[in-house]
């Protein structure tokens, strides 16, 4: 068997661009020009948050940290003494916002769930992992592992009942729909190994997605940061 590695010769140009000096050009461009990617790393201050009594946390009024992947979002939030909401916290918050008499809260609910353009997506703190002894849900940026409770383990399109999911009917304590949840309009992708959760709303549907690649990033994808009540978040 031939185990020799093939010879790779680095060319002098790539698609007409000279290799020599390319590093300097790229690095100086990145340094001198303002970053046009819509990354927002300034976390909202505690005044920019809504207190959700049922979840005992503050929930950001704005989606931030756009265009970061799941791990980067966790890292950046931690630096700002904030964190990503779990599925259950997110669900409880939606329930609180929907039933609020406050116009701002209702607008925020619509911002998250309304079926319209543009595409909006939010990371949730849930990483799914298949282990020898079963399927696990990892939260707190994968630091806390719990066995996944008996939840709906098949995709539902058009979906499950948003009403039931939000109002704690036929759901697990981890915030996932139970197998007996009613049909409805909220799309649902069931948990897959090494994938994470997110909540997405777009022009044709909204969905709870437990089959998202943690490495994905997009300018429409961010997070509604949360801070625990009593925390010293900005």
């Amino acid at each position, binding site marked *: 068997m031939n185990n020799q590695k093939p010879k790779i010769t680095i060319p002098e140009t*790539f*698609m007409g*661009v*000279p290799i020599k*000096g390319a*590093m300097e*050009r790229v*690095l100086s461009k990145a340094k001198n020009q303002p970053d046009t990617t819509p990354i927002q790393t300034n976390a909202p201050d505690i005044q920019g948050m809504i207190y959700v009594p049922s979840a005992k946390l503050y929930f950001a009024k704005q989606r931030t940290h756009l265009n970061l992947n799941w791990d980067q979002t966790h890292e950046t939030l931690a630096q700002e003494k904030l964190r990503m909401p779990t599925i259950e916290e997110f669900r409880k918050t939606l329930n609180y916002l929907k039933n609020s008499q406050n116009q701002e809260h209702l607008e925020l609910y619509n911002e998250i769930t309304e079926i319209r353009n543009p595409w909006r997506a939010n990371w949730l703190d849930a990483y799914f992992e298949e282990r020898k002894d079963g399927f696990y849900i990892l939260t707190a940026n994968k630091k806390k592992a719990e066995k996944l409770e008996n939840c709906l383990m098949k995709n539902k399109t058009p979906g499950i009942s948003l009403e039931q999911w939000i109002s704690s009917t036929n759901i697990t304590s981890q915030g996932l729909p139970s197998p007996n949840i009613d049909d409805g309009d909220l799309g649902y992708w069931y948990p897959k190994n090494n994938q994470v959760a997110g909540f997405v709303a777009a022009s044709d549907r909204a969905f709870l997605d437990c089959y998202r690649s943690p*490495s994905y990033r997009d300018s429409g994808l961010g997070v509604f940061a949360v801070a625990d009540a009593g925390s010293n978040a900005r």
Partner: protein
Amino acid sequence: MNKVYKNSTAIGNLGGTPLYMADLVDACLYGRLNLFLQGDTGSGKTQLARDTMGYFPEKSMFILGRNDMDTRELFQQINLEKLRTAKSSEELKEVTSKIDNHLIVVDELPNCVPAVRAQLFNLFDGYIEINGVAYPIGNGYSLGIATGNVGQKFTESSNELGRALRDRMHVIVDVDYFHPKPSDTLEILAGNTNPRVEFNFQEQASQNIISRHKKIASSQIPFEKLIIANYFIHGLDYCSKDSKRAMKDAWPTQLEDHEQGSDVGLVLPVSTRAAKSIVRLSQAFDEIVKEKNGKSDCFESMMQAYKLVSTYSGVLNEADVQNKYEGNHYKAMDAVITTTRNQFENQKENISAGLEMASKGKKDQKILNQFTGRWSFIRDTLEYILNNSKEKK
């Protein structure tokens, strides 16, 4: 060679040099790539295959697909000298000189039952199995050209023939999309009104083809082509669900909405085997353009090769082809190529910087950070080059 098949409709253009159907056939010969010619009855596909046999007058074989065929019979004969000594009828048989054939043409291949097709595909793989022994065909150079008319959806995954074709034919082309011009048909009609397919054995050109094949096979692949091929394998695999390949049947329905409107939802990545075919065909195109005194361009030659290898290889989202591209597979592939071109235009400076970093042998995280999303594979490529250079030191 005086060819009977005439078609001046260009299938592509490289740096101002047009490429025709005959050039594609020549490129497949240079690259030693099996070719399937799909087309309606009377479209000239059989004539094109016959013309190609003219390159190998004594070393080509024409087989008309039929269900009761045993391909082993084509390569065996009875040795009468062994009549007295042989202990069984099998010992009487020996492999004939047909084993030296370089080109095997199978006309109307889809007419054969799957068992026969499987035997024919083995011939295309370059060997014949007789009594448990695999005999190589063509002394190191052989390929197959097959023709057939199996309709528009001939490469759908649900179709047994489609799967087999995708597995064994490196290039699948629908000749109906590149119909001869009126001037071509006028020339054909004025020259000869014989409606039958003509054999056209000309001077032996086989050595020229084989030597060009050896040259292409042994030449170093330009680095730019390796990066482009890796983009087809890995870059086109990237999606919100991590990997289109891993999504299997969930692709493209479970993609995000905005992905479904882009090339992410339109095309799957190519297999490593298909990527090899793309690189090989591209190298052959470059050789043909050089013969025509033209100047080829690495990127464009790879795009032409990608189009001809992949359009019918099952990578396109059939529903999108039907709904958004009027059922025209080549049009859908042109859209993918346009996006690919834009992607590379936007990244070429970064890739150049990455290559400079690799040539200096020192990792620079800021440079590596330029490669995200579908370009993440470049990080791995650069790190491979860095590690390789360290090992050599």
